[in-house]
């Protein structure tokens, strides 16, 4: 006699809502690559420019954060063995966040810094608050905490700080009130976003997913724990000292704490990777390996940048931002999506058919050859874009953005194939 398994029902990922987040993220990624391509002439010089601010937020909110929200709705229930507090809230959050993201992007694009930009920032804050409530409601039911859980809680706190700082910054553009430099607060906002929110999630989730994908066993986790404390101490420092003028030394010390923490994280990833049983590197792992090398590089770059004046390098801010957002984060997201989206769809469509009829393997869910072509295109685009910035060549930049756009089209095609399987 067959019995319903209560565990299964409880932790099953809410497929429809996750797909919505992932689909929005992928579509956003293609659009923003297209926008970069057709506006390549405006992408140079200092970063505080309408189109650059607009595209950066399309990338951080629409692509990176949308993906993380979807991934957390998928992973938190299984990793922490708990039911998602509310699918309804996840749905409401999606629409408010999407509206806020579009509003903020168009607001920056036209540099409409009044009500338009501010109302959008308020919408984003509401959406993020809803997410925080949903996560908190989920977390309180967790019975067995693990290291991934701690990272996710920290990430959530930094997400809220990022959102509030963002809102205060947009308000300052409307009615200036910040007594110290606007750009100093912008730096706080950006660092807390990328290190506190995004990288905290990346770290915590990596400790769970990489061993699973590579079948790794028998390694020590102490480096991963060190990473948690070092990065958090550094972030608390950043969050404190950025409120004062002339606090270069304490900010530098905080930055070094963060760099040391990321080094510990990368060492932990190396340990997991070294102990892997599956020697063959599939497409998801290839992308991830590229991303982790890039994380090492930007950490070094950022540390040097924080106490050396590199402004003599042309477009140095754009190079740094591009390498963080594309080299490290976008490559990682694409790689992880090639792992988790096939699983998500497979689970939804075939899980109930196992043993009853033949079902495909995960690797049969998309065309790995196309994916590999996409990988080479994106990797080439990242190197070429960096070179174009360094040599200040607009023609080369156009070509490089073209490569990335093509790469993103292949990725989108493969994602569509998986969803339709």
């Amino acid at each position: 006699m067959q019995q319903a398994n209560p565990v299964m029902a409880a932790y099953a990922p809410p497929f429809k809502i996750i797909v919505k987040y992932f689909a929005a993220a992928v579509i956003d990624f293609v659009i923003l690559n297209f926008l970069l391509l057709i506006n390549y002439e405006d992408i140079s010089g200092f970063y505080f420019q309408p189109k650059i601010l607009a595209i950066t937020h399309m990338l951080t909110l629409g692509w990176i954060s949308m993906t993380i929200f979807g991934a957390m709705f998928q992973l938190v229930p299984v990793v922490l063995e708990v039911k998602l507090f509310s699918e309804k809230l996840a749905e409401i959050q999606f629409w408010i966040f999407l509206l806020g993201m579009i509003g903020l992007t168009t607001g920056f694009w036209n540099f409409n810094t009044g009500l338009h930009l501010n109302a959008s920032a308020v919408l984003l804050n509401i959406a993020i608050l809803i997410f925080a409530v949903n996560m908190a409601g989920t977390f309180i039911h967790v019975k067995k905490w693990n290291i991934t859980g701690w990272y996710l809680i920290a990430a959530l706190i930094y997400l809220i700080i990022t959102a509030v700082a963002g809102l205060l910054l947009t308000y300052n553009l409307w009615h200036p009130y910040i007594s110290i430099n606007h750009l100093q607060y912008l730096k706080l906002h950006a660092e807390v976003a990328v290190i506190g929110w995004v990288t905290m999630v990346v770290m915590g989730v990596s400790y769970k997913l990489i061993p699973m994908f590579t079948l790794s066993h028998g390694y020590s986790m102490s480096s991963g724990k060190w990473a948690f404390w070092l990065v958090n101490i550094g972030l608390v420092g950043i969050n404190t000292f950025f409120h004062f003028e002339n606090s270069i030394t304490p900010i530098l010390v905080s930055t070094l704490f963060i760099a040391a923490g990321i080094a510990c994280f990368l060492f932990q990833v190396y340990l997991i990777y070294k102990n892997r049983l599956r020697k063959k590197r599939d497409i998801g792992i290839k992308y991830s390996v590229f991303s982790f090398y890039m994380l090492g590089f930007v950490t070094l770059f950022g540390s040097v940048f924080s106490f050396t004046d590199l402004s003599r390098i042309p477009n140095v801010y754009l190079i740094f931002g591009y390498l963080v957002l594309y080299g490290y984060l976008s490559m990682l997201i694409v790689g992880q999506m090639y792992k988790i989206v096939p699983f998500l769809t497979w689970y939804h469509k075939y899980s109930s058919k196992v043993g009853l009829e033949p079902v495909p393997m995960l690797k049969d869910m998309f065309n790995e050859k196309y994916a590999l072509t996409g990988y080479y295109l994106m990797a080439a685009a990242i190197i070429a874009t960096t070179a174009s910035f360094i040599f200040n060549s607009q023609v080369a930049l156009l070509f490089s953005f073209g490569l990335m756009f093509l790469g993103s089209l292949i990725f989108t095609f493969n994602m569509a194939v998986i969803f339709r399987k």
Partner: protein
Amino acid sequence: MISNEKVLELLKGVIDPEIGLDIISLGLVYNVEVTEDLINITMTLTTPGCPMHSSITEWVKNILWQAAPDKNAIVNLVWEPRWTPDLMSDEAKKALGI
């Protein structure tokens, strides 16, 4: 009555879709016990907190129910003793390149 061997053979049909190998070759099934009205399976998974967690145990039940609808299939998911790669069959090790 369905034999232990038959049960093991059936469980070879439960394949981890990520790894592409079945749960017997992976060494995830620790014990099979068939009684008058029960089939008791004691098994583990490669990683605690694996998203396949619930589905794999569900598939085991499905497949056994198909073959022996008159028996109640029970799956005990255990984490001790912990799974290690040594439990894999030689073919499985070869397939993974170990």
